[in-house]
């Protein structure tokens, strides 16, 4: 936690307004932690740092340890940098039965990264994820907030190559 000395993260005016809105929205302000982490993650290039947690603690008036434990519990908050396009491929059972793991390997191979890595140009990162509720259209991937379903290795790469 020592890196806070050089804390550099600050929410934008809009981001701060969103956090304030979430704080007023629920019965308790703790319920605003998850929505606020989403706001901050978006403004910090897709991942959360100690500086982000400290800043949220300050603006929300919630202990840093409390925000930190919520942040660490949920998989959608990234603890390490991700690419501009964060590619998450499902490898749970229904997708595994229909080639989800082969798809993951193909994407990693084509992009030249291992799972969890970011491409040198910063455009892509790849990870494997658990069931995303797209089992009838397996295999699938989620890129940022969008689902791409009924994929083949070729169609998935065509989609990714089309991303700026």
């Amino acid at each position, binding site marked *: 936690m020592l890196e806070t000395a050089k804390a550099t993260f600050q929410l934008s005016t809009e981001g701060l307004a969103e956090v304030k809105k979430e704080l007023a929205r629920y*019965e308790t*302000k703790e319920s605003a932690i998850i929505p606020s982490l989403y706001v901050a993650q978006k403004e910090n290039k897709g991942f959360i740092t100690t500086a982000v947690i400290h800043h949220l603690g300050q603006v929300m008036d919630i202990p840093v340890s409390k925000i930190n*434990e919520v942040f660490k519990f*949920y998989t959608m908050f990234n603890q390490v940098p991700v690419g501009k396009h964060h590619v998450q491929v499902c490898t*749970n059972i229904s997708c595994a039965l229909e080639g989800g793991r082969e798809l993951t390997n193909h994407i990693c191979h084509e992009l030249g990264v291992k799972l969890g890595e970011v491409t040198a140009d910063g455009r892509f990162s790849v990870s494997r994820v658990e*069931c995303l509720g*797209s*089992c009838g259209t397996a295999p699938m991937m989620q890129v940022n907030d969008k689902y791409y379903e009924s994929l083949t290795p070729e169609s998935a790469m065509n989609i990714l190559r089309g991303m700026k």
Partner: protein
Amino acid sequence: METKLLTEFYHLDEFRFLDGYKKHGGYVNLAKALKMQPQAIIDEVKNSGLRGRGGAGFSTGMKWSFLPKNNEPRYLVCNADEGEPGTFKDRLMMERAPHQLIEGMIISAFAVGSKKSYIYVRGEYYYPVEVLEQAVQEAYKAGLLGKNILGSGFDHDMDVYRGAGAYICGEETGLISSLEGQKGQPKLKPPFPAVKGYLQKPTIVNNVETLAAVKYIIRDGAAAYKKFGTEKSPGTKLFSLSGNVRKPGNYEVNLGYSLNDLINNEGGGMKPGRKLKAVIPGGSSAPVLTAEEAMKATLDYECLAQMGTMLGSGAVIVIDDSQCMVDMLGVLMHFYHHESCGQCTPCREGTGWLNKIVHSILEGKGRLQDIDLLVKVADNMKGRTICALSDAAALPVLSFVTKFRDEFEFYVREGRSKVRGSFYAQMHH
């Protein structure tokens, strides 16, 4: 054949908007319900025999009647944290018919006397959340939510809450923890949420499909609803069919429908040249059935319980003869180990060991006694924890190892799959 009660208008794009929904009878039953006595609605739901569609299959009317009979504020929470592997029906319902859920929720809220409800949606469902939020706004503008709904004097507010990626939040007390802004860890029961739930207030947590079905019980009456399905498992149910079938998808059928028919009629049967090997009938936590057992099964709570498995969330996962059961158990154990919340030792440690042992077999390093060790560890995880995740991890192990022991023994002896090459090495490059 499908029986489209809830999904009758899902093919119409307009059904997701208020105007289109109203064209097909939308909110007529809310108006009807608001003129009824709340207790009469609870009785109707109880008499309909409706059982929770999320996984546990508990009587909905019974759950509602556990609420304290006083004026204490209470919450209604819709569990839309759909995460049981193989399940994708709630997503369809939210995307195609958000108002059907909202109407079912307002009726249910009126019945149990709740002035505030939340729809807790899994974080990855960006699009369903967008659709729901729009629909909630539409409902507010039309006076279907807020103060004095349709002139009845009943006030109700509704909000959508997005989770952030945790299977355990589908467990109702884990969901409540998450909604309170905590880690999504389940809580000891009793007290049950109906007595002390969200912020220590009485809370009813029901699945998307359960709440949507309430509207039809009000529309047609309990007696008419009971004509669908079987005597002990009344109604229709959405089944999410996935895996190695020709036509995977969501299908609404009467409870008690033949599993064989679901796979071979609705699902179009197996792929060319392939044979059925196994079926997981109720989401990844349900014990697996062999092909022979599956052909005799009917999709209702009783039949599947008798066969030692469960209806669960209605996720039917079809496995063909090209698949390796050791490999598939490896996939499942990776999942449960990843999702254990870590608060109970048997689950936290047990899921870790199960994952480790099955992967050591997959790496070709297994010993014959490891097969019995899997069973021993799984046995020790059952019924010893706060929530059902530990059992959900143990049950697949016991059924896979018992019913497909030859595949496990072959893998240990030969250091390779009886059916296909191991995927283990390829996933860990």
